[in-house]
């Protein structure tokens, strides 16, 4: 019996073997030492039909619980437009490779060019690459880039207010690459600028990474950071939420040199953690050290406007061990997702997303305080995510809420929990969450 993905008939196989001067399928592996040919059985199930696969997935899905999402922690439940899903499922995009053959990849190259433009606009920095794996890896790449740009310097500073998974990934990358890492402590919920200044004074710092919106949801005031960092010839990178950049100050406006982060907030589904969309933008003067794919505009043999992958001499396939990064792909399809999303939303739609998230978050924040079970963690401004001190032990609260159908009150410290509200949540749902919490005690 054949199989749906294998077109070979017995006649085909005989003809193909014949042309190759081979007598049997086994002879295709006559160059392989006999003792490494696998003769055992694989520990995987028997073949399933599509119907059986569908049933299997229904069964697996029933072992999951869909929760109303009232927390973030680095993954955000934003509205996902129907058009974005539809466009990314087009096989011309889905089943193509990296656009090496520009003549038959103008679709991919054009949307990457549009994506780069939109990310440059949002971050206020002149250049963007074609995207990275996810936010935390883009942060690690941003720091490696600061080391490459400043040459010879060997230490980076990262703020304690970054998301814990960002700090963890950055630690791993720096440890193996041999770059020193110092964590700048926090002070009242935000990066301690004075502590940063002190570290900068030693002169060996290549780059500093701080969040635009931090792990507590607080919008950091980065006034003066760029000047301090630049005064010791180091670079400033800001970990940013591109959705929020429609309303809050951009890394470029803060005077930063690099922006990195996760663009999952641009309508990409939660998807149990991936695929998401890392991004990396920089000021023009550093573009030759920017890792990853970059699309650029040019003309073809007939003078028509067209697009190619460019500045490839930076990359691993040419520089090999001298490349700044080993990345040789991007999250292209997710970049398309974000590009279509931003095309639909425009500046006003993206502002509306922020209005609805901000309004909902502040509403929930105030209702939760009114219960008397929570108290203010920090009174600094926030957008869609916030942290409160909880009189209920965080783990207990979080687990109990999950049992009631809510993903909320994410433990964020010994006695602190975080909440998040996006445009996907309604007033009724927020009120429902508050009444469930009241009943818990």
């Amino acid at each position, binding site marked *: 019996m054949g199989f749906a993905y294998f077109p070979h008939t017995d006649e085909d196989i005989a003809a193909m073997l014949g042309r190759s001067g081979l007598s049997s399928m086994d002879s295709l592996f006559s160059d392989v030492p006999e003792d490494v040919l696998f003769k055992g059985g694989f520990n995987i199930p028997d073949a399933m039909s599509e119907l059986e696969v569908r049933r299997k997935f229904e069964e697996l899905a029933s072992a999951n619980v869909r929760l109303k999402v009232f927390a973030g922690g680095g993954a955000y439940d934003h509205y996902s437009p129907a058009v974005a899903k539809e466009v990314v499922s087009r096989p011309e995009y889905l089943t193509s490779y990296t656009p090496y053959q520009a003549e038959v990849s103008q679709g991919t190259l054009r949307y990457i060019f549009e994506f780069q433009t939109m990310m440059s606009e949002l971050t206020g920095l002149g250049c963007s690459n074609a995207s990275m794996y996810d936010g935390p890896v883009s942060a690690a790449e941003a720091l490696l880039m600061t080391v490459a740009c400043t040459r010879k310097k060997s230490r980076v500073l990262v703020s304690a207010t970054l998301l814990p998974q960002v700090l963890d990934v950055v630690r791993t990358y720096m440890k193996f690459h041999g770059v020193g890492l110092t964590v700048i402590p926090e002070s009242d919920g935000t990066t301690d600028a004075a502590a940063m200044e002190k570290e900068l004074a030693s002169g060996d710092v290549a780059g500093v990474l701080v969040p635009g919106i931090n792990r507590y949801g607080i919008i950091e005031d980065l006034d003066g950071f760029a000047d301090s960092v630049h005064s010791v010839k180091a670079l400033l990178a800001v970990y940013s939420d591109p959705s929020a950049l429609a309303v809050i100050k951009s890394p470029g406006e803060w005077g930063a040199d690099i922006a990195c982060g996760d663009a999952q907030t641009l309508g990409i589904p939660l998807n149990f953690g991936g695929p998401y969309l890392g991004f990396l933008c920089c000021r023009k003067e550093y573009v*030759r050290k920017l890792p990853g794919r970059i699309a650029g505009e040019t003309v073809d043999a007939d003078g028509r406007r067209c697009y190619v992958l460019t*500045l*490839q*001499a*930076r990359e691993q396939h*040419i*520089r090999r061990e*001298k490349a700044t990064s080993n990345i040789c792909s991007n999250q292209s399809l997710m970049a398309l997702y974000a590009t279509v999303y931003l095309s639909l939303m425009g500046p006003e739609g993206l502002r509306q997303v922020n209005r609805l998230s901000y309004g909902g978050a502040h509403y929930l924040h105030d209702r939760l305080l009114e219960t008397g079970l929570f108290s203010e963690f920090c009174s600094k401004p926030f957008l869609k995510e916030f942290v409160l001190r909880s009189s209920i032990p965080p783990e207990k609260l979080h687990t109990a809420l999950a049992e009631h159908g809510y993903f909320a009150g994410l433990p964020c410290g010994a006695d602190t929990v975080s909440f998040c509200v996006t445009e996907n949540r309604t007033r009724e749902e927020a009120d429902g969450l508050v009444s469930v919490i009241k009943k818990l005690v």
Partner: protein
Amino acid sequence: MSRILEGLLYSESHEWVKTDGGIATVGITDFAQKSMGNIVYVDMPEEDDEVSQDEEFGAVESVKAASDLYSPVSGVVVGRNSALDDEPGLLNSDPYANWIIKVRMTDPSETGNLMDAAAYTAFLEKQA
């Protein structure tokens, strides 16, 4: 055939040097530009940066290749040819008229390690 100018000194990594007092002017040879193809970018150090003999000081890039530049002398960079920022192709059109950096040498005797035109010609022939 690659052009080689009399009166210049050459390194095995295909840089040329012209000395004038304590200042060394550095570029790449005709052989180097030919093997690169169309040069699209020259990565140069800044003024006041230090360079050391036989150590990397920058790179030249074409569309599909990159080649590091090695300094033929040690010293401090006192000039960079900023015309190459806008028009890196100048290195293709005349690699000897278009220098890359000028270095105030800290040890002019190092030029003794370099080849003269005849020696570089022989070196290229041996390479071929």
